[in-house]
């Protein structure tokens, strides 16, 4: 049995005999009795998301998940294929479990995949990822004056984001994967 301090993104919790992977958590202490951790967890079978709050005094049934460094290879139908960098084995992860973060994946990206009984159940991607800009309309004179301080650019994995108007095609940029926004020039 584990405690609330072991709750992390990507761990799998057995809650009322069902398995859930933690997608979001926050330790809070607002003075409502002892501190607690609020979790958002996705059911491993149905993908349904629930919110559960555990008090720090509670024990939590965290099941053993192996975290492996992997590299993203390609999208295969609804699923995503990764390569285990230790064994060079290839695995496929369910698109529902990858969720919205799939849009940030690009070939060769290093990620951490959580495996429960050899099944990939969670994915951690870097907080900032570097991409090459493949399309960026040139800035037009007067843009700033008219309030157009950003423009849409396309990145090498097909993702489009808003970026400052000074960004040009061929440049390397960092994207914040928590917000999906331009972060800085790389």
């Amino acid at each position, binding site marked *: 049995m584990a405690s609330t301090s072991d709750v992390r993104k990507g761990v799998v919790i057995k809650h*009322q005999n069902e398995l859930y992977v933690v997608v979001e958590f*926050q*330790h*809070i*202490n*607002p*003075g*409502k*009795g*002892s*501190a*607690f951790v*609020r979790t958002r967890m996705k059911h491993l079978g149905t993908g349904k998301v629930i*919110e*559960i*709050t555990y*008090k720090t*005094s*509670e*024990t939590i049934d965290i099941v053993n998940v192996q975290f492996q460094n992997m590299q993203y290879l390609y999208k295969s139908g609804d699923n995503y294929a990764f390569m285990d960098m230790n064994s060079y084995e290839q695995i496929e992860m369910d698109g529902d479990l990858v969720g919205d973060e799939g849009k940030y994946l690009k070939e060769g990206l290093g990620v951490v995949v959580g495996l429960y009984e050899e099944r990939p159940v969670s994915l951690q991607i870097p907080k900032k990822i570097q991409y090459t800009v493949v399309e960026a309309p040139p800035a037009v004179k007067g843009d700033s004056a008219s309030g157009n*301080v*950003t423009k849409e650019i396309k990145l090498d994995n097909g993702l489009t984001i808003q970026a*400052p108007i000074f960004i040009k095609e061929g440049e390397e940029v960092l994207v*914040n994967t*928590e*917000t999906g*926004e*331009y*972060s*800085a020039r790389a």
Partner: protein
Amino acid sequence: MSNWKDLKDNPRLKNIYETRLQILRLIREFFWSQNFVEAETPVAVRFPGQEPYLNPVAVDFLDPLKTSYRLYLRTSPEFALKKLLATGIEKIFEIGKCFRNEESFGGTHNTEFTMIEWYRAPGTYKEIMDDTENLFKYVGEKIGKNKLKYRDQEIDLSGQWERSSVKELWQKYICVNLDDYLEIQPMRKLVLDLGFTVDEKDEYEDLFYKIFLNKIENNLGKDVPIFVYDYPASLCSLSRKCENDERYAQRFEVYVGGLELANAFGELTDFKLQQENLQKDKELRERLGRPTWAVDPSFIAALESGIKPAGGIALGVDRMVLLFTGARDINEVIFQSVADQLEN
């Protein structure tokens, strides 16, 4: 993220910050226009509040001979503002920084945060509810927003806000009469019956909130903001008891989209009862193994000198900005939050 470079390059974040500054100005205008006195009280205090589960940040001040004095960064300006009520001020507010340790850096928390507190003496907690609703509507109108946003929810600001007692909410969501669960034993059984675990060290407050946080809180303020009022008296050290039922006390919280935004009291102004309640909280802090300090003697003395029946509230300004701007988390509404400073 909200450091200078983020603000420079990201118009959404810049807009959030500008809206924050505008909201701060509007809050002041709202209270000034009603002849509230704007106060300024110490951030570092010798005797912070006794809330059993809050963790004030300790700081040591040195005099020129390097003698050390232990102070604490306030978790709220409550004691100081009530002392000012004792001077005869009838309507008072303060916007300032407060600190609570052992909180997440992000999400809905930052160790250093901005709070507004206001008090009316004479005043009731129902009047404070009206103030809160009017404040939000005033700010919303001035910045052209009639909806609040939290996560993927939109909460209507223009209509009348909901008001429900804690007892009504337990009836609605747990289907029990809270009157029967005001003691620790029946509450412990209820927690177990609902499928949660119980630790022998759990205090009544822990048990109450195991249920409240899991089964009730997320439902609060989904369509319109809600005032949740009249808590079990044992959870309200600083409130006076309800006139019609002394098992409950005059306290309310405001929830918007499941997010707690404010905590308010019909203020306890009886100095003897206040001393007793704070002493009990201090003893609970000792039992919980937390740092303790004396009950602020000048606060008790101020109450003894006499304060008119008062109502007051503490409202998180960062969260208010978050709701008005639809920011993703608290780090986006605070310039150089703790997380930002640690990362950059």
